[in-house]
């Protein structure tokens, strides 16, 4: 903002959500060309602890690439890596309007809104998966060397975090799940940009559909079935509705229509198993950071309450019950 002066931060407040970062909403007011201007903004600062250990520069670059490609994301504006400015690195992006939820799409919403959001959800996923990561400048995400790499890399990555964050406890179902994932890797049909947390609860919406997809900190390159498997896990929407949006089989059919690619059931299943294991591990990371005093976020100890559902789904998938 080279021509701007008299910057003022107004209505600063910390908000919930995006638990991997401290998130603040504020309005920036400044003078430019003799006029006073205002813009609603979001600041995301690295936490002292929390659910994920991710790189803010990487997240900022992914959002910037998605914005350039025309996907529905908040416009990224500033990235500050110097921890001397505000204790920890942070970035600032436009604050989009709309509402969000914590998990499944709210059952109380009108059917017309649900239908529009479901359509947008899969349209955005199709657009994301149609992008060439090289043209987007996202080789920084680390391209898998072959089509059988993504499954192995993701399974090994989350198994490593499980071993690191389980606080010495043994979770027989999780241990079995990672062994199964290692023994049954799938081979992708192509390499796409994977959001990594593509689900209900991670978008802003209104009655006209999705306004912006959020929380790109787990983005990487991999198998298109990974985001589809994660989005349609039982955990994000019990019963037959994927993410609370649409009946699961209709959801898959619409995905096929929007992408022009078949849903590979074997790969989908692999990534749903991985998804449940990954979400359980994310819970363990939050619990560990709370126990070891890296975070005082009062939500973290409640992550324990999510484990029975996740482990129950895994046990069903692996025929352990």
């Amino acid at each position, binding site marked *: 903002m080279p021509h701007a002066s008299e910057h003022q931060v107004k209505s600063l*407040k*910390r*908000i*919930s959500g995006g638990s991997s970062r401290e998130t603040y909403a504020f309005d920036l007011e400044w003078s430019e060309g003799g006029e006073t201007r205002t813009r609603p903004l979001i600041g995301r600062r690295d936490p002292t602890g929390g659910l994920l250990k991710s790189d803010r520069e990487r997240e900022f670059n992914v959002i910037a690439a998605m914005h350039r490609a025309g996907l529905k994301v908040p416009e990224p504006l500033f990235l500050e890596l110097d921890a001397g400015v505000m204790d920890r690195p942070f970035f600032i992006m436009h604050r989009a309007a709309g509402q969000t939820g*914590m998990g499944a799409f709210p059952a109380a919403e009108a059917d017309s809104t649900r239908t529009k959001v479901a359509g947008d959800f899969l349209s955005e996923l199709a657009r994301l998966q149609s992008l060439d990561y090289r043209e987007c400048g996202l080789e920084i995400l680390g391209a898998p060397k072959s089509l059988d790499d993504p499954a192995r890399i993701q399974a090994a990555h989350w198994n490593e975090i499980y071993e690191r964050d389980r606080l*010495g*406890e*043994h*979770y*027989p*179902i999780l*241990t*079995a*799940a990672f*062994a*199964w994932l290692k*023994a049954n890797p799938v081979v992708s049909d192509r390499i796409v940009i994977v959001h990594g947390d593509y689900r209900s609860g991670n978008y802003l919406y209104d009655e006209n559909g999705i306004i912006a997809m959020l929380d790109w900190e787990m983005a990487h390159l991999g198998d298109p079935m990974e985001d589809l498997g994660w989005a349609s896990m039982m955990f994000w929407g019990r019963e037959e509705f994927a993410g609370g949006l649409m009946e699961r089989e209709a959801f898959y059919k619409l995905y096929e229509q929007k992408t022009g690619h078949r849903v590979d059931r074997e790969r989908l299943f692999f990534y749903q198993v991985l998804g449940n294991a990954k979400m359980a591990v994310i819970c363990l990371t939050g619990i560990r950071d709370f126990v070891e005093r890296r975070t005082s*976020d*009062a*939500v973290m*100890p*409640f*992550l*324990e*309450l*999510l*484990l*029975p559902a996740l*482990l*129950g789904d895994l*046990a069903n998938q*692996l*025929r*352990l*019950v």
Partner: protein
Amino acid sequence: MLRPTLNELISGMQRTIMEALMPELTSPYAQGQAMSAIGMLTHAAAALESAPAYDAAEIKDLRATFAALKRLGDKHLPKKSGLRGVLARATRAGAKTPPDRSAMEAAMAAFATAVALGHIDESVARHVRGYIRRNLERSRQLLGGSLPSG
């Protein structure tokens, strides 16, 4: 009995947060955290009451399951699988005073892995599945709650 009791203290902390602290908090984030802290205290009170019974039931079930597996005999555990040694270690861990629960759970993880990979026969898998089913049910009963909105 010392008064206030632990439950009375927890209940008092919740009232302090709700009645003295909450009215002074203007930030929605801080209000959410305060509500989560109240929930955490409810969870703590329930855990204080239920956790000892949960732990005792876990240990009893692990011991019983390994005893049942031992009764099946070695012929059901392929020598190459390493599960005979795992079972022997689990049995020793269960006989310790106090029992080595962590070692028993590590052993159960090895058996669950063998079931998931289809490496053991159905007579063994049936016992392992039975334990996992009961363990999940106990966990649901102990942790049966929902994530607070904070």
